[in-house]
């Protein structure tokens, strides 16, 4: 039997509310398939499964909020029968073990358990109504004689239990606050910056885009992402996670892209395998990710596995950005405004388009010299845009 747990959806997300099951019991699932939709403080997230199987039992009802790591469903392995699974379940009656919160620094505590209800009078009509409405009568406060629970109490209880519209912005602010506080508390940041001449990249991109219809045009942001991904090949200690007191290098380059949400707030979901994508592929992925992030529709793997983050605040008109690392990542690359400024090359002063790239590094995982080499590599990559 496969226990399907609510996956971690990033350091600033420690619980989720089940919005929808995408698969019914008895239906088969394939690795990578979306099986549920979960609401987090930042977005409605499509939760994927990473094993083939058949949906057996759904353990969390729609509307319930559970901590990350909770078993939300069980699935049959290929070849396993429901009888086998049922008998195994009888042997282990704790089908839904008390979940452990994944993040020890969780800022948002789970709601306290309801106090143990003493035996109280409950009118049969109230009990029936509670059954009809599928709510737990023990959680309803009684207002009748001797604290008896009445039909009216049950209906009021339902109104309270009904999912309140989430103030997404306030929730997101809270999540960002938790992750960024943890970052500044735990991560000894170092900061480096480098001015990068962008004439070659800008001219090359203008020529490329001249050939392309508007629907296939490439933004400089995609060019910068690709250059970062390729430069990381020579700086593996910037791409990965700080976990259990040591650095763990990531196997792929999954870049979290900081995307501002129009109504306020920020989200940094991943584009997977950026180093292996062609520029047109990367541009399509970026465009798709930005529109889905703003529409609040992301996948669990995009939320949980960025291996480094890139932020671009140049469009907001700043020259450089020194970002805060998103734990458990160990580095963040920032780009400022692309603008024409004085530049000296081969002893001659001229006007050239320049951009300031910065690196925030986790000093536990890497030293400044490695960071410096990474930025030099990034500059070099951007001088050969045709190779990106």
């Amino acid at each position, binding site marked *: 039997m496969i226990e399907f747990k609510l996956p971690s959806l990033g350091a600033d997300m420690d619980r989720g509310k089940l919005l929808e099951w995408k698969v019914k019991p008895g239906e088969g699932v394939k690795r990578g398939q979306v099986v549920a939709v979960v609401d987090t403080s930042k977005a409605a997230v499509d939760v994927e499964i990473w094993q083939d199987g058949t949906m057996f039992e759904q353990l969390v009802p729609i509307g319930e909020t559970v901590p990350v790591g909770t078993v939300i469903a069980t699935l049959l392995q290929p070849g396993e029968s429901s009888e086998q699974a049922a008998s195994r379940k009888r042997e282990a009656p704790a089908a839904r073990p008390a979940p452990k919160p994944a993040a020890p620094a969780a800022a948002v505590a789970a709601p306290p358990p309801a106090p143990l209800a003493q035996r109280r009078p409950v009118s049969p009509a109230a009990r029936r109504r509670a059954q009809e409405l599928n709510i737990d009568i023990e959680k309803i406060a009684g207002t009748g004689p001797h604290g008896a629970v009445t039909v009216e109490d049950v209906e009021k209880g339902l109104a309270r239990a009904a999912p309140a519209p989430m103030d997404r912005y306030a929730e997101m602010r809270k999540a960002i606050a938790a992750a960024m506080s943890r970052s500044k508390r735990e991560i000894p940041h170092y900061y480096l910056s480098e001015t990068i001449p962008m004439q070659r990249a800008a001219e090359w991109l203008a020529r490329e885009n*001249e050939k392309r219809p508007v629907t296939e045009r490439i*933004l*400089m*942001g995609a060019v910068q992402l690709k250059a970062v991904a390729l430069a990381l090949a020579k700086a593996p200690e910037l791409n990965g996670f700080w976990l259990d007191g040591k650095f763990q290098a990531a196997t792929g380059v999954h870049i979290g892209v900081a995307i501002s949400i*129009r*109504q306020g707030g920020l989200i940094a979901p991943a584009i997977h395998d950026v180093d292996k994508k062609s520029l047109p592929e990367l541009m399509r992925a*970026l465009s798709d990710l930005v529109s889905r992030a703003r529409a609040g529709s992301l996948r669990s793997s995009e939320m949980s596995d960025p291996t480094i983050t890139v932020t671009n605040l140049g469009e907001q008109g700043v020259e450089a950005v020194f970002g805060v690392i998103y734990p458990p990542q160990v580095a963040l690359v920032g780009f400022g405004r692309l603008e024409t400024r004085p530049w000296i090359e081969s002893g001659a002063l001229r006007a050239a388009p320049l951009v300031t790239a910065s690196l925030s590094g986790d000093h536990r995982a890497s030293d400044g010299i490695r960071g410096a080499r990474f930025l030099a590599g990034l500059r070099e990559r951007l001088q050969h845009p045709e190779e990106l």
Partner: protein
Amino acid sequence: MNETEIKTRVIAIIKSIAPEVEEGELRADRPLRDQIDLDSMDWLNVLVALHDKLHVDIPEADYGKLVTLDNLVGYLREKLAQRAA
């Protein structure tokens, strides 16, 4: 398509990308990006929508001419007239 029609279509496209825009507060003779939070991805989406809805392809080299709403509407009117001719 006359200028008023073009303007209505352009504003509808901008609102689909930046829903917070209040039409009444948009000054057609002031730079769009001073009034609306449009990053390069949003701007590209405006151009893709113009391509889909009005079938006008705006080359990157012309971006510099399209600072205000009036600029954009005038540019589109010219392009559409050229095509009709």
